[in-house]
Structure formats: C-alpha cells, structure tokens
C-alpha cells in the first residue's frame, strides 16, 4: 500500500483479488498476465502491439526480423496482433493488457489514442532521443508532412514518430457517375456540387445510394462538420515544440510556421450551429433516400457495398486504395477527389506511428526499432498493398498506385493541406462512445439538435472526469 487504504498499488490490489474485478468478464483479461514484468520478455526481445490479426502480426514480425538483427544480433522482435472493430476497441484492449502488467515496449497507435496514452504517462517523450539523433533523422523530417509530426505531439513533447496517415477525401464510383451523366468532380468542388451529384446518382434507382458513411470519429459526419468550419471540441495548440520546429525544420520554416506543441482540445462544441447543420444535412440525405442508414464503426459493410457498385460517393483515405483493390474493384472503376468545400475547405486526418512505453526496460533498443519502422524501406513491409497512406511524401509515387489506383492518388497527400487531426483528447474513449450513441440517436429521431445537445452534455461530463 502506498497511502493507507486510500491508494494502493495495482499489484497489491491484484493480490487481494481486486484485479479479478467485474465478475468473470474481467477475470481472464486482468489476471491472466499478472505475473510478467513491466516490459517483459527475454533479454533482447522487443515486444510490439499491432492493430490487426495475429497472422498479419506474425508476418510483420518475420519480415522485420532481419532488419532488427542488423541493429542488434541478439535482438528479436515479437509482434502481437490485437483485433478490434475500431481504434476505440484497440485502445481499450491495449489499456487492459497494460493493466495486466504485460505492457509492451512499442505500440503502434493512431491519433485516437495518442493523448490518452501520453496523458497517463504510458508513453515516453521522444524529445531527447530525437534531438540526439537529429542528423540521422533529418531525411525523415525533410520527407514527412509537419502536420503529421504535430499531431503526434502533446503538451510540447513528441510521443510518436508517424509513418502513415489517412485524410478524409471523397471517393466516388466512376461507373455510377457515368451512368448518372455527371462529370467526375474537380478539385475545388463545393457542397452544392456534391448535393447535385447526389441527387443525380439517386435518380438511377433504389438499388443504388448516392452516398454512404460510417458512424465514427474519423471520416464520418465529422468530415462535413469540419468542412462547415466547426469541430466537436474547441481547437487550440499547446505551446512548446520549438525544440523540434526550429531544428528539424530549419530548412523549411514555411512548413513549420504556426506549428505548436500539439493540438489542445478545449471546451466541447458538439452542439454548435455548424455541427447541427452538418449532422442534419446527412440525416436529411438519409431521409430523402439518397443515403442508407450508416453502420457504427468499422466500415467493412460500406466497403462491400461500394465495391459492388451500390454506393456513388463516400468518405475515404489512402487505405481505401488497397481496400477497394482487394475487394475486387479494378483501377478506373473508382477515383478520389478532395473533400468538397463548404464554408471552409478544412478537412480531417488521423495519423499512425510508433511510441515507446514508459515501462519498457529496453528503451534504447526500442528507439532503434522505432527509427527503423519509419525508414522508407519499412513502409511496404508494415503496410503491404496500399492499406494506408505513406507519411513520407517520397513514397507517394505513381508507381505505388499503378496497380490499385486511383487515378487521382495525389489527392491523399494534398488533402493534408488545411486539414486538422481528428479531435481525440485524453478522454477519447468516452467521446467516441457518446459520438456513436448520439449520432445513431439523431438518425433514428431525425433531430440533430436534440441529440447533439446530449452529446455536448456527455462531452462536458467526460472532460470534467478526465
């Protein structure tokens, strides 16, 4: 015990049986791994958590092992796949695993979980290591968009090196557009254009839908909210970060202009007029028969419907290039354009990267592995087949997309300009739960305002409790 009965350490609680909590639901998860040490594993084994199936994790482990051996002959990499329907699910499972005492050394986590993990001191700031190795990392910083770096900062510190991202652009079925006799959208198209397209595609019949979307934080009705000039939370930036911007971007001060120490999410603004207008627009689209009722989380159903030619337009990022190709769509049967402009051309993105756990006992080796992960040659080992967008611009080439498409692949990177990371504060999980619930409530009732008032109250409660 550390503080009488008021506060006892986690292992003491486990010893008393408290770790078994939540009846039998939590028993396996919480006590199953309770005996291992913080960073665990044999000497020289770097453990990494990966969002995906174990078969993919094992393939990744085998592919990266030769590279790891070049860093340290005795080092081995152990990648554990964690399944989940979305990042919310993944983060919940990672945190439960950490609670069991089997925290890994490296975690691959997206924007959704960064502030949550950083705020709980689960991740170690990389500032000193980046500063120390800046010369070897300079080519990385020269190549990667500073918005991605900034999205991985929290309270002035850098917690992850990003290697991938997905910005919310608009995918469309070229077949359905041709059938509807509308030209493919050009850069700079507007919401009026989008609505006009939607009406013409919907006129093709009841077997197709003009537009479909998924209820989640990334690329949902939130894309329309951003384009409408709003956000779920007040946008701000932490001070700090000069240690990085002044050095790593010394040769490109224009790119670093206005950058800070990470995104600071302030008071909830979920029921702002912009939010109500954006969500009500999509509800009206659904009620007028132009859009089906969206699924919650994931996106597999949407991808299947789009690939089978039943959806005209939907929000997607670079991950859809590989996803649609794997679903059997031929290059040319779909394409992508920047998200249509509404009141602003603000859009959203989420980034993925690698951080080191505070509890790791092999931080030096873990850092070397993290640096390896963001090397250009590692990208296709980590993400074979265009299942995400490379963070390094040098990897965005016509050759990369010549098999999968789409024709306007450069949109993926261009979308980053003027875009804002998804608003994932330290209380992200509570925010995501409320977002899903209140959005489905709005769709069922048809009343965006009432549902968003509820969302606002939920967010305020979650923010107070965080």
């Amino acid at each position, binding site marked *: 015990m550390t503080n009488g009965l008021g506060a006892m350490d986690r292992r003491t609680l486990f010893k008393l049986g408290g770790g078994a909590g939540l009846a039998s639901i939590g028993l396996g998860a919480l006590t199953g791994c309770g005996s291992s040490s913080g960073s665990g594993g044999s000497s020289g084994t770097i453990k990494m958590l990966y969002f995906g199936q174990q078969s993919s994790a094992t393939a990744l482990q085998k592919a990266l092992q030769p590279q790891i051996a070049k860093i340290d002959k005795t080092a081995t990499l152990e990648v554990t796949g964690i399944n989940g329907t979305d990042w919310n699910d993944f983060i919940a499972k990672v945190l439960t695993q950490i609670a069991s005492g089997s925290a890994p050394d490296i975690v691959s986590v997206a924007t959704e979980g960064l502030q949550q993990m950083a705020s709980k001191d689960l991740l170690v700031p990389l500032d000193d290591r980046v500063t120390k190795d800046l010369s070897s990392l300079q080519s990385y910083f020269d190549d990667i968009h500073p918005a991605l770096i900034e999205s991985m900062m929290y309270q002035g510190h850098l917690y992850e090196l990003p290697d991938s991202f997905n910005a919310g652009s608009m995918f469309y079925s070229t077949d359905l557009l041709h059938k509807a006799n509308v030209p493919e959208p050009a850069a700079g198209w507007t919401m009026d254009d989008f609505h006009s397209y939607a009406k013409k595609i919907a006129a093709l019949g009841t077997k197709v839908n003009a537009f479909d979307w998924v209820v989640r934080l990334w690329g949902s009705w939130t894309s329309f909210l951003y384009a409408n000039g709003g956000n779920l939370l007040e946008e701000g930036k932490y001070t700090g970060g000069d240690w990085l911007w002044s050095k790593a971007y010394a040769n490109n001060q224009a790119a670093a202009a206005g950058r800070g120490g990470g995104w600071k999410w302030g008071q909830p603004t979920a029921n702002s007029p912009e939010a109500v207008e954006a969500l009500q627009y999509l509800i009206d689209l659904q009620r007028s028969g132009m859009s*089906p009722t969206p699924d919650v989380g994931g996106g597999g159903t949407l991808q299947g419907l789009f690939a089978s030619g039943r959806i005209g337009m939907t929000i997607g990022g670079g991950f859809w290039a590989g996803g649609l190709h794997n679903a059997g769509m031929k290059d040319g049967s779909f394409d992508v354009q920047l998200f249509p402009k509404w009141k602003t051309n603000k859009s959203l993105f989420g980034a993925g990267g690698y951080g080191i756990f505070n509890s790791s006992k092999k931080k030096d080796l873990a850092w070397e592995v993290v640096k390896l992960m963001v090397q250009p040659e590692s990208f296709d080992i980590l993400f074979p087949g265009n299942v995400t967008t490379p963070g390094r611009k040098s990897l965005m080439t016509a050759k990369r997309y010549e098999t999968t498409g789409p024709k306007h692949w450069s949109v993926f990177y261009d979308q980053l300009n003027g875009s804002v990371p998804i608003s994932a504060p330290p209380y992200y999980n509570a925010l995501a739960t409320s977002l*899903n619930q209140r959005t489905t409530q709005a769709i069922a009732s048809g009343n965006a305002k009432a549902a968003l008032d509820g969302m606002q109250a939920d967010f305020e409660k979650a923010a107070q409790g965080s």
Partner: protein
Amino acid sequence: MFGYLMISLAVIFVAVFTFLPIIASLGLSLFSWDVISPPTFVGLKNFKRLVADSATVHSFGVTLVLAVGIVALQLSLGLALAVLVNQRTSTWAKTTFRTIFYLPLLASTAAVSIFMGYLFDAKFGVINYYLNLLGISSVPWLTSTWGSMITIVLIAVWQQVGFTFVLFVAALTSVPTDVLEAAAIDGASPLRTLFRVKIPLISPTILFATVVAMINALQLFDQPFIMTKGGPGTATTTATIIMYQTGFQNLQFGYASAIAIVLLLIILAITGIQFLAARKLVFYQ
C-alpha cells in the same frame, strides 16, 4: 471422503471462476481505479453515483424491458411448440422437430448476431427485400428505437427458445397418462386439458425455465452489442453493455464493478420474487 474428492474439482472451479470474481468485484466497487493509476478507496461513492447517473439507470430500465419481453415470448413460444410437437405420435417427427428447434442454441451468439445484422439491415437486408416484394415498405429493424428493441428480443428468443422447448417437451412427456385419460373421460377439451391439467402438472418446469430465462435475459450483451452497439442512441444499451463501456472503454473499473454488483442484486431479487410467487403458483405432485 471419495465423494468430496469427486466434487472437489467442480467446487474449486466454481470458487475460482465464480465466487472469487464476485467477491473481487464487490471489493473493487469500493475503489476508483482506471487500471493504470493506483486505485483509491472511495467507499460507497460509486453506488451513490450510480443512483444519480441517468444513463446507467436508463440501461437498467432497458434491460428489464428487454428481459420481460424475451422471457414472456420465449416461454409462451417454447410451450406452444412443445405442445404441438408432443401431439405428434411419430418418434421420427418428434426427433426432427426437437433437433430443428434446438439447433440455434448451438450456434455462436456472436456469429448469429453478425448474420442477423445483415438480414435485418434496413436498406440492403433480405427481410426488407421480401417485405418489399409483398408490397410492405421497409422496416427500420435496427435503426429505430422500438424496431431495434423488438428485433433484439426476436433474435434472442429465436436462439434461446430451443432450450425452453426441450424442457417443456420432456415435462409434457412425463405427465401421467392416467390423469390425461381421466380428463378425457370427463369430457375436457384439448385446450381445457392443457390449461387445467398439463400446465399445472409441469409448473415446476415452467418455474425453472422462467428463472433460467430471466437470469440469462438480464445479462443480455452479445446481440445488442454486435447488432446495434447499444443504439440507436441508448435504446438497446443494456446494463452489461454500459458496464463494459464504463470498465473497458472508459477505464472506470470501480464504477463498472458497482454496476455489476447492482445487476447481481437485481437478478437475485427477481429470482427471489419468482420463487416466492412459485409458492402459490407451482404445483408439486
């Protein structure tokens, strides 16, 4: 001694995997714990919070409504099917129907829920497709408040009714033939025989089926979690879903444990009420 040895494995299993977690949950419900920071003792604060938390209270209401619907439909449908099958004289027919009605119980609830989610999809689902062919407009099965509740009840009943059905078939088979013959000689119609003779005689089985069905229904999780994620809004957010969200998503394990304990107490209370009512309603030969 040999007897104790024989039951020891079961006792140890139940103690480790049932009683210990319950006791642990009770202890944990007195703490505030995000699984990362050290737990802090908060006494009964989590229980006080529960009473004032409209979302959690609402989830208990949803749970009760769904449970009553599931139990009522499961029992009445199970009994109706059992009576009909029991009237068949062919053993082949009886075995075939027993197998058919019991099969859904063997399927994975998660797999069934995913599959049913596609079937009941408002826009692309097969159910609405056939309704449309009949000239009936699409039903928002999973995207409206009442639609989602009814769908969840129907799917839960579809999967669980086989268990109740098998219990009732066995009970009806064991009804003494001399009693039935006496009823027939007295001129009782089939319906009168059912309600005045058979049902009273199988009432202990009905009590057992009711208790088991109610306990299961009050812990409903898989179907709403997979098919509706507790929505639309919170229409199908059951107590177990909010417990999961609170614990494993919002990392409030102390509060989630308090919800688990309250749910346990509610289940115990309802089961107790059922046994009390059974004193007057159940007939033991």
